[in-house]
């Protein structure tokens, strides 16, 4: 370990002060990026979590090293991780479109707490390295993520006039080697048009051209329209 920091590894007034300050600074750096992107857990939340972890860790150290009690000094700090899992789970929410948001924020809070634990234990190398890697993840790899593209499954909306058409449509698609992963049929709610609608979700492979498929479908008797959603 880096020996120039050895003066700060014991539990003294100076090292306590230093560790608390450092926890605030590191938490601030970690929260800065989240605040910049207007996420719910921002600047102050990360500082508080980091500070809490630091104090918990230091308390464990104090009980053993200074107070001289025969206790496991890591017990208090370890349960911080468990507790932050709870808080993190509360940060995650489900939108009305039934998707999950907030998972990266929760993981970031969790990691910030663990970095706070490291600072409190006096493990400055690990804490600093962790902070650098987390900041790297949040900034550099966000760009990388945006570059990753992949085609999701496509959904076709097909309208047809007679109920029996659906079977013909499905068989046609299967002949074209299209993998149907989901099929939802809705009856005609509009009595005037007397049309049936089906939403067909297809898993694309490389050679598939959806406009061609739609055109083929529209040529079937009884199919009014086929379009990509």
């Amino acid at each position, binding site marked *: 370990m880096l020996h120039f920091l050895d003066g700060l*590894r014991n539990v003294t007034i100076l090292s306590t002060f230093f560790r608390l300050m450092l926890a605030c600074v590191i938490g601030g750096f970690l929260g800065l990026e989240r605040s910049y992107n207007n996420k719910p857990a921002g600047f102050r939340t990360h500082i508080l979590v980091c500070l809490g972890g630091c104090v918990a860790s230091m308390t464990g150290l104090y009980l053993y090293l200074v107070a*001289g009690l025969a206790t496991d000094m*890591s017990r208090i700090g370890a349960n911080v991780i468990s507790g932050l899992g709870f808080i993190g789970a509360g940060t995650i929410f489900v939108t009305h479109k*039934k998707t999950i948001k907030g998972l990266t924020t929760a993981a970031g809070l969790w*990691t910030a707490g663990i970095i706070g634990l490291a600072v409190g234990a006096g493990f400055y190398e*690990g804490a600093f390295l962790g902070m650098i*890697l987390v900041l790297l993840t949040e900034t550099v790899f966000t760009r990388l993520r945006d570059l990753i593209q992949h085609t999701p499954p496509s959904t076709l909306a097909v309208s047809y006039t007679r109920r029996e058409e659906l079977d013909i449509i*499905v068989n046609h698609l299967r002949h074209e080697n299209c993998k149907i992963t989901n*099929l939802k049929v809705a009856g005609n709610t509009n009595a005037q048009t007397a049309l049936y609608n089906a939403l067909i979700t297809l898993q694309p492979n490389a050679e598939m051209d959806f406009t061609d498929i739609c055109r083929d479908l529209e040529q079937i008797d009884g199919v009014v329209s086929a379009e990509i959603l």
Partner: protein
Amino acid sequence: MSYLRQFNFLSVCLRMILAMCAGGIIGFGRTRKKKTAGLRTYMLTGIGASLAIMISLYEYEMMTNGLWAPIVEEIGMKYDVSRFAAQVISGAGFLAAGSIIAIEHQQVEGLTTATGLFASVCMGLAAGAGFYECVLITCVLIILVLNVFQPLERMYKRHARNIDLIVEFESVENIQQITELLNEKNASIYDIDIERTTRSGEHYPAAIFSMKMSKGKMSHANMISSIAELDCVYSVEELIA
């Protein structure tokens, strides 16, 4: 190699970067599929898990060879290196549970994402402990399970004999019609769950049919379209568990 298994600055750097990269490789595959837990989530949890174990290794190192050794001689060694790791697993379970959602009609989503995150955190623990062989093998296996096995699973599901359909129809008497059609198609129904759905302000009866199709050539899509042919049926949808 044994140098890297000891606790020194180089091995600390290596382990944390290894945990981040291993998490990153797995997250890369998940992001490509536009899953909730993406690249950054896996990397962050990997960093956190490896750091947690390294804190306990650090404290142990200080107590045996470092500054706190004299105090240990006085009071006696009372330290459990695995305590941090145990709580990491607990905490990771909670985080992963947050990404599981239950949506309408008894469907659960996000389970694979959650368990993938959990397995990735455990892999981060191994990285922090210096168990490099395990990390490499586990990384390969997780990638295999998450990416390679999915087409297999999808193929199985497409040909699965068990199928759950939610059918909206005109009135409760139509259930008999539907069940007759299903029996004609050689499907044995083992559960019917009747509920009421609301559409355009009115209440329509609906039922969830859980059934097992016989060893025929009937695909799920064919089954759905044959039910949709009935006059009394408003809509049919397959519930994908």
